């Protein structure tokens, strides 16, 4: 009886909800939306725009590095005064480009664009929630990011150019306007933008964590959460703890820049004249920065790893290998991420004993990282692999993660790092392991969840083409770059024409640049596929990849509130693929064990008794109404 009454009243709610919908105008629905799905798409589109800008910048400086004699006059319409009359790129602007490229890619594309998109989109859908804990804060988070974006974008057009001290903005270069044109207004805007960016990250992160803890649907215990959600949760915790430290260091830097304090400055002469600052320490900044900086690289990578776990298990049609080991390794990585920061500072004159402590801790990270690598490979082992574009990019991520991680182990040795620090070897290391791997995670996520986001499919053939060109292109860029680095090419140099030892490597540098342009062009396949499919793609079925997670139980075009009627309960983990005895090769999380007697394991039969209990666990607001 009561069950029927319940269902009816829910239906009513759903209806009254419909009315509510109509009254939402364009602004509420698409601009200042509090719906997590719309916010996710806002993050995605903004991230894509930033990616286009950021990668274009890298192509410009790659041309400068690979073909130093080329005439860049054709860029004059875009870059204006930064191209000289003889067609040369301004050396100061080269540094600004490198800085902006790093900042944009690390923070705006791979932090905001990646976890902003997928944490927002997938957390409520995969844990079975109507929306984020606070839709309003979620909206604020996006708009703070937007504000940060506007400021950073604006800084590119300054007369003196944007910030140019590298994405790590070490003082004194960043602290003294006299040090470099970009250290004036450009750096001021950089710092302002990043302050807003941090606020945005904190608002978002607090929301993600709270949502995962409080709004899981009944039956969704922590050991049934998909690994994506675990990854987003841990990412958010990392951000919550490390971004405030960046905020502090940025605030102190602002004080040094504008109020004459000496936190980071000491004994500096400008044009032979001494500055009054005494007693500050630029190394202090490096400590604070890298306390954020190292966790930040995992903030960038972990969502990609989570997405990969999900996509690989689904498309290998096999349970993920070592579910608990995956969680443990992510927790281990997250913990270690906070105690290894000084491996970026081996050559700052650090006490060699301290260096060896940090070396030891750093090398331990290889253990949980290897656990993840092996688990992915074992999941793929003898699976019935379906090579969707999402799957290809996920496998690509594993490959990039392994090859980039290996060079990390080399860099982690403080003695080897003396030779390799600040060379292109480091650049190659982190582009493989962080840049390309996380970008592949982003692509995997977009290809995999596009049907849920837009109700349409992307073109798989174009997706596969995009994968192969990117995969080949990226390795062609970064494998040679290791050699250039070992040969001693320092990073952040405008050109290498005036040294003897660099001559032999000019052709290699040119090869890298050509490969970079090649990879860049390959991305247009994606752009076209993405935007075309939003409007004209094939209509998506409800569960195109025959996946187990809850988001595929929602209607094809998900409305506000995600599920019509009640939120499904969850009875099993999300990795029941190809279970022996089962009718299909997948059993979604919301199918109770009592309906799959033919495939249950003995201990799962015992769980049937708990089903009633799970169903009665509706103590959340979101179960009382359909909204």
């Amino acid at each position: 009886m009561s069950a029927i009454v319940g269902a009816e009243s829910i239906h009513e709610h759903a209806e009254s909800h419909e009315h509510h919908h109509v009254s939402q105008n364009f602004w509420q629905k698409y601009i200042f939306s509090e719906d997590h799905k719309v916010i996710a798409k806002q993050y995605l589109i903004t991230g894509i725009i930033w990616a286009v800008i950021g990668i274009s910048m890298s192509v410009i400086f790659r041309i400068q590095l690979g073909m130093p004699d080329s005439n860049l006059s054709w860029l004059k319409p875009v870059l204006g005064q930064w191209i000289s009359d003889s067609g040369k790129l301004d050396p100061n602007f080269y540094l600004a480009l490198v800085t902006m490229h790093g900042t944009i890619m690390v923070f705006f594309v791979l932090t905001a664009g990646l976890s902003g998109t997928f944490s927002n989109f997938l957390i409520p859908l995969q844990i079975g929630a109507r929306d984020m804990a606070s839709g309003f804060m979620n909206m604020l988070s996006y708009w703070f990011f937007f504000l940060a974006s506007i400021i950073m974008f604006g800084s590119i057009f300054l007369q003196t150019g944007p910030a140019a001290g590298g994405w790590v903005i070490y003082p004194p270069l960043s602290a003294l306007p006299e040090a470099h044109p970009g250290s004036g207004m450009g750096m001021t805007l950089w710092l302002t933008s990043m302050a807003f960016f941090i606020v945005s990250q904190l608002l978002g992160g607090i929301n993600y964590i709270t949502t995962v803890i409080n709004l899981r649907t009944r039956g969704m215990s922590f050991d049934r959460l998909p690994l994506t959600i675990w990854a987003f949760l841990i990412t958010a915790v990392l951000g919550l703890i490390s971004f405030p430290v960046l905020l502090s260091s940025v605030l102190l830097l602002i004080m040094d820049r504008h109020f004459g304090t000496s936190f980071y400055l000491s004994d500096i002469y400008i044009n032979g004249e001494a500055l009054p600052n005494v007693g500050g320490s630029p190394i202090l900044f490096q400590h604070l920065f890298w306390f954020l900086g190292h966790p930040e690289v995992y903030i960038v990578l972990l969502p990609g790893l989570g997405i990969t776990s999900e996509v690989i298990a689904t498309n290998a049609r096999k349970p993920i290998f070592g579910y608990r080991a995956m969680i443990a390794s992510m927790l281990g990585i997250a913990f270690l991420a906070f105690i290894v920061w000084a491996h970026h500072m081996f050559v700052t004159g650090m006490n060699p004993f301290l260096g060896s402590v940090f070396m030891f801790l750093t090398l331990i990270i290889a253990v949980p990282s290897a656990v993840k690598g092996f688990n992915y490979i074992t999941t793929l082992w003898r699976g019935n692999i379906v090579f969707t574009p999402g799957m290809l990019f996920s496998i690509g991520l594993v490959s990039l993660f392994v090859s980039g991680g290996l060079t990390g182990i080399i860099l982690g040795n403080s003695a080897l790092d003396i030779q390799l620090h600040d060379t292109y070897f480091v650049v190659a290391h982190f582009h493989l392991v962080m840049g390309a791997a996380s970008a592949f995670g982003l692509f995997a996520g977009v290809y995999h969840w596009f049907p849920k986001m837009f109700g349409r499919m992307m073109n798989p053939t174009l997706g596969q083409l995009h994968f192969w060109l990117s995969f080949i292109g990226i390795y062609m860029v970064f494998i040679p770059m290791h050699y250039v680095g070992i040969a001693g090419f320092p990073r952040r140099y405008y050109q290498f024409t005036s040294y003897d030892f660099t001559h032999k490597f000019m052709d290699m540098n040119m090869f890298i640049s050509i490969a970079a342009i090649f990879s860049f062009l390959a991305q247009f396949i994606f752009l076209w596929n993405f935007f075309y499919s939003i409007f004209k793609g094939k209509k998506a079925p409800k569960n195109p990849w025959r996946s187990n997670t809850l988001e595929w139980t929602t209607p094809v075009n998900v409305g506000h509130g995600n599920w019509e009627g009640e939120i499904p309960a969850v009875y099993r983990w999300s990795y029941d693929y190809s279970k022996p005895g089962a009718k299909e090769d997948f059993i979604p999380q919301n199918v109770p064990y009592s309906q799959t007697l033919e495939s249950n394991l003995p201990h799962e039969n015992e769980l049937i008794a708990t089903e009633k209990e799970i169903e009665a666990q509706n103590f959340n607001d979101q179960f009382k109404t359909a909204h």
Partner: protein
Amino acid sequence: MASNVTTPGAVEPKFWMGGIEPMKASYGKLMMWFFLISDTFTFSALLVAYGYQRFSFPAYSGEVADFVNSNLYWPIPEKVYAAVPFLHGVYLPLVFVGIMTFILIASSVTMVLAVEAGHRKDRATVEKYMLWTILGGFTFLGCQAWEWAHFIHGTDNGTLMTIMENGKMVEKTIFGANLTVNEYGPAAFADFFFFITGFHGTHVFSGVILNILIFFRVATGLYDKRGSYEMVEKVGLYWHFVDLVWVFVFTFFYLV
């Protein structure tokens, strides 16, 4: 699939099974907790920076009684913070800051009482204790303003120091403190003092503003209508946090 609709309340809730708020903590309260965790790291970074800087300077090595200010070593806090309003020239080390600390801690106690009254939905008592808390907050801020003013103004005699000015070393008597130079010790001493106590003061100030806001909402009966005084609890958490941070700031700047 079976219909999942069931009547609530028929079973004992299992806190980590989903469908429920674990430990009965509402999302708002959780968010406050996580915000406080992250703010802890903001302050920790500042205090660690302070420690890093402080110990890169030599400490004063002589007898405490013979201590004189100099920018060559870090000052002894009790020699610097020894003034009390209206008692000009009397040496009362750490007395005034002790009073400030006491006031702030007392305001935390009144906050506890307000929260407790909120649990009983006793509006008049909540109002009373919120007012005391607000008063405590303002008094603390007032004290801090005096402390700053005195620090900036400095002692009657100042200190003779060798400092860098316009690119040259000059010998000069310094009075009080600003962000570039101060009579008590190295520039970093005053820089950190201003920045960290200022940053903490900003937190106290926003706490007072929040408290006033919540006070008005209590007074207009909003929480009676809502049937829950949880907002009082949330600002309470924030207020205790700000107090706790002060204890650390106090320890770092005045005691160590």
